[in-house]
């Protein structure tokens, strides 16, 4: 039996999580094996705005402009996780971004080479779905 939350509750949950990011957090793309407690190697690190996300609307918060990583660390392994973390490196949000489940097959997955530029034009976070 699923639990349904009101819009106010979903906004509150989303805002509570994004508030934990604090100022000058980062969006980091990582290879396989990452956990919240022990993140894996970073392939690219993109600085978030001082205020990372706007206020949640309908349960979803949209990130403010994100700075590109113009000289990515890169890794031969495919990107497997995205983490959103504080400026001190504490992971607040982590999710898998594996390509294997895609309707469009990305053979070998998404890899980032050293020196590539990685940009993020859109980022939303939803703590609880409707």
């Amino acid at each position, binding site marked *: *039996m*699923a*639990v*349904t*939350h009101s819009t106010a509750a979903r906004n509150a949950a*989303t805002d509570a999580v994004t508030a934990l990011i604090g100022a000058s957090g980062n*969006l980091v*793309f990582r290879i396989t094996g990452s956990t919240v407690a022990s993140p894996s190697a970073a392939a690219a690190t993109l600085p978030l705005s001082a205020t990372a996300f706007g206020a949640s609307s309908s349960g979803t918060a949209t990130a403010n402009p994100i700075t590109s990583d113009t000289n990515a660390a890169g890794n031969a392994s495919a990107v*497997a996780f*995205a983490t*959103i973390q504080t400026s001190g490196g504490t992971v607040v*949000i*982590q*999710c*898998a*971004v*594996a*390509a*294997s*489940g*895609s*309707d*469009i097959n*990305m053979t070998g*997955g*998404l890899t*980032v*080479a*050293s*020196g*590539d*530029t*990685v*940009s*993020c*034009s*859109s*980022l*939303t*976070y*939803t*703590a*609880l*779905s*409707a």
Partner: protein
Amino acid sequence: MNDLKGTIGELTMTIQVTRKETGKVEEFKLTGFLDADQLKELQNGSNTLNGGEECGN
């Protein structure tokens, strides 16, 4: 005991990778669930609705 399960969250993003060697821009739309079971589905490929999606080259 009832099986009470909260609805899961998700992160969606659109990223662009500009290749240093070629200057080629690749765009990807990524969706990730924050629920552990959904993560496993993403990782083993059994979830066809979420994961990486290459938008264009």
